[in-house]
């Protein structure tokens, strides 16, 4: 029993990341009609926002202390991060909380990236065939990841969670299990809650604002909304920017769980696409449900008990589910009729 709870918990953070990326993908697809293969790259760029913030905060002032000398007789170099030099303890705290802080930076940065991507490239592809949309965004994804590779190198760059969230939570005790059986890293729980909050925010935005209403109407019937004389184009730009921000935040917060490297976007992209297709192209609820479901199933499949019976199942479970779903329910779990059928 506790093993099952633990696996569900293990699947939640990954599921949250899938859901957040898939949500953006499906919104972009539903409103703009564009298949965005560069969405994984946005997740990766968000993660590297966190890397950049950490690097900037860690910039150090080097002072020579003439009173102390090293073993070689040269004055000792004292390195203090500027933030600590300027803000004292508050600076230390900033360093500690670099990942959460990076969210604040990631929002405007990702918005800018998203908006310029849409204005500079995507909008020229609204009327082009899906195959060409896939190809051009695939090219863009390669370009973005290679730029990141040349700037940050090819190796993963570990990002620490804040000290306060580094420990484990004995989750089992909270729900009446024996202590020590269901322990779970605090940050992963935070990530799950964070993703739920963002998902809630996106849904609330779409549900309760006029803007969101237009977007939902656009997802249901693009042509009619266009006929109503609503300036769809500008809204599309904002929608794309939003989706970029969501993917970016998902990436930035994920860095303590998975040390970011340049190809993490591609890895997540393929899985997120599968999530979208399983959930149903253009279905918001489907993306979220499928995201968490697949995340949890994946974590179950990597249990040793399961792997003993079905060797290798952890490697292919998501794809296998996608194949089964697509063949039995061509529109995915919650897909609408007529979306992408030709």
């Amino acid at each position, binding site marked *: 029993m506790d093993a099952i709870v633990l696996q569900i918990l293990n699947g939640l953070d990954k599921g949250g990341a899938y859901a957040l990326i898939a949500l953006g993908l499906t919104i972009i697809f539903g409103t703009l009609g564009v298949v965005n293969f560069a969405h994984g790259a946005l997740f990766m760029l968000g993660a590297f926002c966190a890397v950049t913030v950490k690097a900037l905060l860690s910039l150090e002032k080097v002072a020579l202390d003439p009173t102390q000398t090293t073993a070689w007789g040269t004055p000792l170099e004292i390195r203090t991060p500027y933030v600590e030099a300027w803000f004292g303890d508050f600076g230390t705290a900033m360093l500690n909380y670099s990942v959460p802080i990076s969210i604040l930076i990631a929002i405007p940065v990702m918005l800018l990236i998203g908006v310029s991507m849409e204005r500079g*490239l995507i909008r020229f592809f609204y009327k*082009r065939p899906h195959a060409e949309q896939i*190809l051009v965004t695939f*090219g863009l994804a390669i370009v973005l990841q290679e730029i990141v590779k040349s700037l940050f190198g090819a190796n993963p760059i570990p990002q620490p969670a804040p000290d306060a969230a580094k420990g484990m939570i004995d989750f089992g005790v909270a729900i009446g299990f024996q202590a020590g059986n269901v322990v779970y890293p605090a940050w992963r729980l935070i990530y799950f809650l964070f993703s739920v909050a963002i998902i809630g925010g996106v849904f609330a935005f779409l549900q309760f604002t006029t803007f969101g209403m237009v977007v939902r109407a656009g997802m249901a019937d693009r042509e009619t909304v266009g006929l109503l004389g609503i300036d769809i184009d500008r809204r599309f730009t904002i929608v794309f920017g939003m989706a970029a921000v969501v993917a970016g935040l998902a990436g930035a917060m994920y860095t303590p769980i998975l040390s970011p490297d340049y190809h993490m976007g591609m890895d997540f992209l393929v899985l997120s*696409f599968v999530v979208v297709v399983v959930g149903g192209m253009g279905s918001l609820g489907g993306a979220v449900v499928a995201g968490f479901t697949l995340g949890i199933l994946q974590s179950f499949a990597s249990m040793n008990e399961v792997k003993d019976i079905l060797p290798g199942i952890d490697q*292919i479970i998501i794809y296998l589910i996608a194949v089964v779903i697509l063949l039995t329910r*061509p529109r995915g779990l919650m897909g609408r009729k007529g979306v*992408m059928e*030709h």
Partner: protein
Amino acid sequence: MTTSMTKSDLLLLLCFAAAVLAGPVLLAPIGAGYPDLLQKFAIFGIFALGFNILFGLTGYLSFGHAAFLGVGSYTAVWTFKLLSMNPIPAILLATLLGGLFAAVIGFVSLRRTGIYFSILTLAFAQMSYNLAYSVLTPVTNGETGLQLAQSDPRVLDIAFGRDYGAVLPSSDLFGISMTGYPGFYFCGVMLILCFFVSMRIFRSPFGMMLRAVKSNQNRLNYTGLNTRPYALAAFVISGMYAGLAGGLLAVTDPLAGAERMQWTASGEVVLMTILGGSGTLLGPVIGAGAIKYFENIFSAFNEGVLVQAYSFLPEGLQHVMVWISSLFVGEGWHLTLGALFMIIVIFLPGGLMEGFNRIRAWITGRFGGGGGSLAPAAAE
């Protein structure tokens, strides 16, 4: 056999064959006249030719064709190990198994169209890739890759009294080693053969039906034709081409690794095809050659070469130019590849062949007194 071939097609085939066979001489001036690279041109030319029969004619965009390439390579290496170092059984079995895999994956994937089809092929390819790394290690030898061993049984070779002694054998065609130029000519002849088959398919009623699949499936169904077997046949043929290409990779270098099956490798063959011109006969071969050529050139560049190249500039500017260029070369070759991908799709979706046609139309329009219609050429 060639009774129903038009003169212009026969001429095209002869020119193509001549160009391939004279490749070592023709490509020497641009520094590509050496066998290792020429082998790659031929092999990836075959891969792209096959992909084009599916994508170019029917419009089904598969993101999983690298899987068939990988299957071909593994099959060929196993044939070497178990049967014989002769390349003929190896490529025959590689082609066959590539086709078999394609039949299974295609049968399932073709139940959907559009992006769903693409995702299904992607899912299957990723499954094969992941399995090759994990459970199938006894067959694929996991991360190390499948290699020959001196102790391999090679039953046919033994039966015919062929003993490689204490050295690790390399593939040979009745005594001619498949490395260097002989290896290239072996691949080159295969390429010519594949081109010929592809040409027959293009000109045949079957090929016309495949183009009709791309153009309007609804009409095709109401015209009394069953779309799915046509698409499946195209899928299997392209899988066989990929299997053959994978087999040839193993023939020239008897080693097979799972990274050949990754989906980015599938993306590469898409790029080759559209760069050359998808749906055109010659385009994919040109696209494959261009990409492998530039990959070779660009990967070879390093800082030193760049500093040399920009030595005519003032020092500050030189540094800037070296830095910018270094993003695109050497390790950064993939950046060039990605950028090329975008540029082609944005500006020249018909690929290089469309570019040639535009130039030709421009010239005839200018100097030939007009009248040349661009439309049929562009649509081909």
